[in-house]
């Protein structure tokens, strides 16, 4: 095979892999003193959840965000939120409601906008960091029946850590879906507005 052809095939393969590699990335940006995660590959609507939504059901998504600094030996910031998604049978678009009080809702979303909208509503208070300080991010999402662990966010003091550990470490039940993204090592200067 001529070298030129081989080089072209290699480039094409690399180009094909780029979207795949980017899909699993997790990054963050700074808005005021809040850090917001970005996960372009977070596609929350897939079977069998889509089937449940299209028959008028609702799906709850639990978002767990964590941020480490220093030697990654302790979580510096953590957040937990629950959003409930439903599907408008006539508009054929999705609607999302955040369950923490006061409740926030949005309608007419496309499926790929749901994750973005949810992540835009969960901010971690930025720790005091120098530009060269290392940090790591992790995003975990699980889809559950909205009735499971109802009242999770009723505690005004936030979610108890033991409860959080219990939620995300318990064995998967039938119909559970989970997503997990990690950023790898970042620098504080990587957090751009």
């Amino acid at each position, binding site marked *: 095979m001529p070298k030129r052809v081989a080089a072209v095939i290699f480039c094409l393969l690399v180009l094909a892999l780029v979207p795949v590699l980017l899909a*699993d990335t997790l990054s963050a940006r700074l808005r005021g003193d809040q850090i917001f995660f970005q996960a372009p590959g977070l596609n929350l609507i897939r079977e069998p959840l889509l089937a449940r939504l299209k028959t008028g059901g609702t799906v709850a998504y639990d978002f767990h965000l964590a941020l480490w600094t220093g030697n990654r030996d302790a979580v510096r910031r953590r*957040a937990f939120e629950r959003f409930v998604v439903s599907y408008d049978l006539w508009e054929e678009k999705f609607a999302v409601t955040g369950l923490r009080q006061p409740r926030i809702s949005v309608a007419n979303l496309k499926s790929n906008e749901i994750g973005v909208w949810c992540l835009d509503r969960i901010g971690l208070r930025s720790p005091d960091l120098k530009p060269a300080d290392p940090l790591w991010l992790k995003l975990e999402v699980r889809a559950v029946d909205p009735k499971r662990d109802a009242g999770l966010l009723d505690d005004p003091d936030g979610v108890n850590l033991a409860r959080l550990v219990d939620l995300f470490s318990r064995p998967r039940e039938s119909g559970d879906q989970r997503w997990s993204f990690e950023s790898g090592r970042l620098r504080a200067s990587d957090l751009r507005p």
Partner: protein
Amino acid sequence: MIQLGLSLAVIAAAAAAATLPPQSSPVPASTAPGGNAGAAVNVNSRYIVESAEITPDPRKLSGTLRQRISDLKGTRFDQEAVDAVAGKIRQELRNWNVVVRIARGEQPEQVRVVFEVSRKYDTVDVVIPRLIYHSKQNFSFGGDVTVRPGADFFLSSGILTDNDELAERYSGIRAGLGRENMFGGHLRLGVRVESWRSQWNPSVTNALANDTSPDTPGIYRTRVHLEPTATIAFTRDLMLQLGVSMQRLEMQYPTSRHELSSAAVSTLRFQRRWDALSGFLGKQELEASYALRAAARTLSSDFLYNRHSVQARYAFGKDRETLIASFQAGTIGGTAPLFERFMLGNSRTLRGWNRYDVAPFGGDRMVHGSLEYRHNVFRAIYDTGSVWQRAGDAKVRHSLAVGLRSGSVMSFSFLVAFPLREGRIEPVFITGIDF
């Protein structure tokens, strides 16, 4: 995308804090695309319930609960109210699964609420797969018990005596075990063991005695059957079953001896149901399958043959009326044992004919079609088909049957069936369940 639970290391590292303050800060929805949908969790709460029904209709549902379902009509869709009714249905129908489905209504901005119920098989399930009386062929009956010790495992055992399906009456026991829902519900593994004793009608033995074809197999006293299978579900509607069927036959003639019939088996099956949600078209159901059984020397089989069969069934139902059309055909190449041969003239094919009058020991070619009309409990059936030898001629026969049918889950039927032929017509009475 990587799917992982929260790692223990992460949890341990975080365990320093006892309770987390609420660090998240939701952004007002007004900045989001599409505007605010209100406080309701389910966006369909803004629509009016056009109709509410339970399907299939379980007869033992109380009048009070029927009224509660009916009362949903005309109200604004309320997820909690619908869930409450579903909960009540679960209380009354303890061994049933209840699924709530919401669909667009006929009118704009309206929705239909459907409570779909199906029997639950999660503990011990007793099934009567066969209970038939045929005035020409006597009784066939059997019972199976299936135990599900876990969510995915099953064990089954049962007894059966059947004088309806094959050339022989076969009686005995069977057992099976397997695992379902592997690889996200895409794979099911199972193994089946059966031990049968065969009895032959004099019509069969006389016909075999008069047959001079070298390809005609002999009769046997007993059959022991072992069949491991793997079923791959490509989609919810389409599945492929692969396996090996090994049957050890105790042959009777010319001397008592054992022979092995080993065949690779594969069945491709498609099944789809369009329920009441599909609108004015009513309920429709389509089932189709193709099966191949190939016995070869490589499987140490004493019989060498290929058996192809296709089946299709389409049912259309609206209100109280149902129309069912079914078709089946098959062909055998080589010398297959008698249990593989095609039979017509029983409780499901050419009703009105006695299978010993049609083809006493079956044929290696078969075509059959059936058209059934049901109105409430009334059913009328027209059957037509032919079974013949590859070297012989096909003779097409017809029959008519009328009768009554009750229930939907385990239906009891009574049929009077007539062969359509010249000369004296003697009716056949068939009664039993699920035929």
